[in-house]
């Protein structure tokens, strides 16, 4: 086959593909969707850039807030820490009660061992008290 005939076939193939894709009907959950490949290309590029921008913005405001719910005791300011950081906090005080431990739940069933606990996301520590 000559080069000219090859070129014609390739051109036709590219054109056919473009026409075929513009007429191809979606099915399933996309059955009511009417969108072109060109528009999808734009959406993919813009949304991908948006993901990268969001990651960069998220990096500017890094850190996880660790909140301290003293369950009626003295107020402790939340701390902003990074992934893997240790938690260091003073013991709260509460009249008529003795501070027992920090826990990861309000019922004080899941003890939070601050020596081994490391930050892996935002969470709240709850103070556990023993009545005096």
């Amino acid at each position: 086959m000559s080069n000219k005939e090859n070129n014609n076939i390739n051109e036709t193939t590219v054109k056919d593909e473009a026409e075929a894709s513009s007429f191809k009907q979606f099915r399933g959950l996309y059955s009511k969707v009417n969108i072109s490949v060109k528009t999808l290309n734009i959406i993919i590029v813009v949304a991908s850039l948006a993901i990268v921008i969001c990651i960069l913005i998220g990096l500017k405001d890094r850190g996880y807030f660790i909140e301290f719910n003293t369950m009626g005791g003295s107020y402790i300011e939340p701390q902003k820490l990074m992934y893997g950081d240790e938690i260091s906090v003073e013991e709260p005080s509460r009249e008529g009660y003795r501070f027992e431990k920090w826990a990861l739940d309000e019922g004080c069933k899941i003890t939070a061992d601050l020596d081994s606990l490391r930050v892996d996301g935002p969470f709240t520590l709850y103070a556990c008290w023993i009545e005096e």
Partner: protein
Amino acid sequence: MSEKKKIKLNKKIISDFLLNNAMFIIIGVVIVYVAIKRPTFLGTASIINIINLTAAKLPIALGVAGCIVLAGTDISAGRVVGLTAVVTASLLTNVSKIWPSLTQALPIPLVLLIVLAIGALIGFVNGFAVAEFSLHPYIVTLSTQLITYGLILIYMGLGTNNGMTLSGMIDPYKALITGTLFKVGSVVVPRYVLYAVIFLAIMWVIWNKTVFGKNMFAVGSNKTAAEVSGVNVKMTIIGVFIMAGIMYAFTGFIDAARVGSATAATGLNYEADAISACVIGGVSFVGGTGKISGVIIGVLLLQVIFTGLNFLSVNPNMLYIIKGLIILVACAIDMRKYLTKK
């Protein structure tokens, strides 16, 4: 072919490659960036952590994948996980505030059967409504999502619990789920990784080696043609949703031990992650298309990217926006691949 046309064709090939693999490229760039900033990201502990998280999220993704193959979806998945986790936590404790008359935990196999029955029942309701009344799966599962959430809130308020977090589960149950399967150095691989592999194998056999699996793909591709070919379309749809409900129940049963507690928020937005993972892995909303290997890849890649962002302490509020954009990109790529396929 002339030089100009060669260049044009090459440009088209390159742009097609970049656009169809945009998701993988973004994930690759994030992995490289995180690895440079935090070299421990590629350490043994981190990789094992990613595998563990993937294993935890795999069963729900396998369940949702079946619904997507049927050209549907299931947005009640997360709440079913939450309900089954809460029921598990309330029955596998020696001091149950929800059932004060229960002085000791029920047998573990019995609780597992109970939660599987709950998951299967919700799956049956979804499947029946879709199959019998031809309601759109989005509408049906939106309603069951809200109903299930209401049930969770009511259940958590029973007895003397008053909506508090459920914890303090019995040690044999925790050991069954989070006990050591094996160690890599000093890093523990928990038992639920093995259970995830077993679910994977079972689903692979169902999808690829059973008549039910073939019927599922046939119904997803073309319901009318499947019916004409003798496939019982209604039973297939109901069966797929029941199977999905059972997988969500397994996820909830595992999650209660894995997290160590259960609240009304357990399972929140799990379905978004599962659906994203399926679409990234090639399970198309077009219907009739999907592979188990694709589901694994999708779940793994999502866990990699979010663990990486976690390592960088990216503002957690931004993660919701990023997840939404990932779903958008994944669906756009899915549609593009369908339109440009010969």
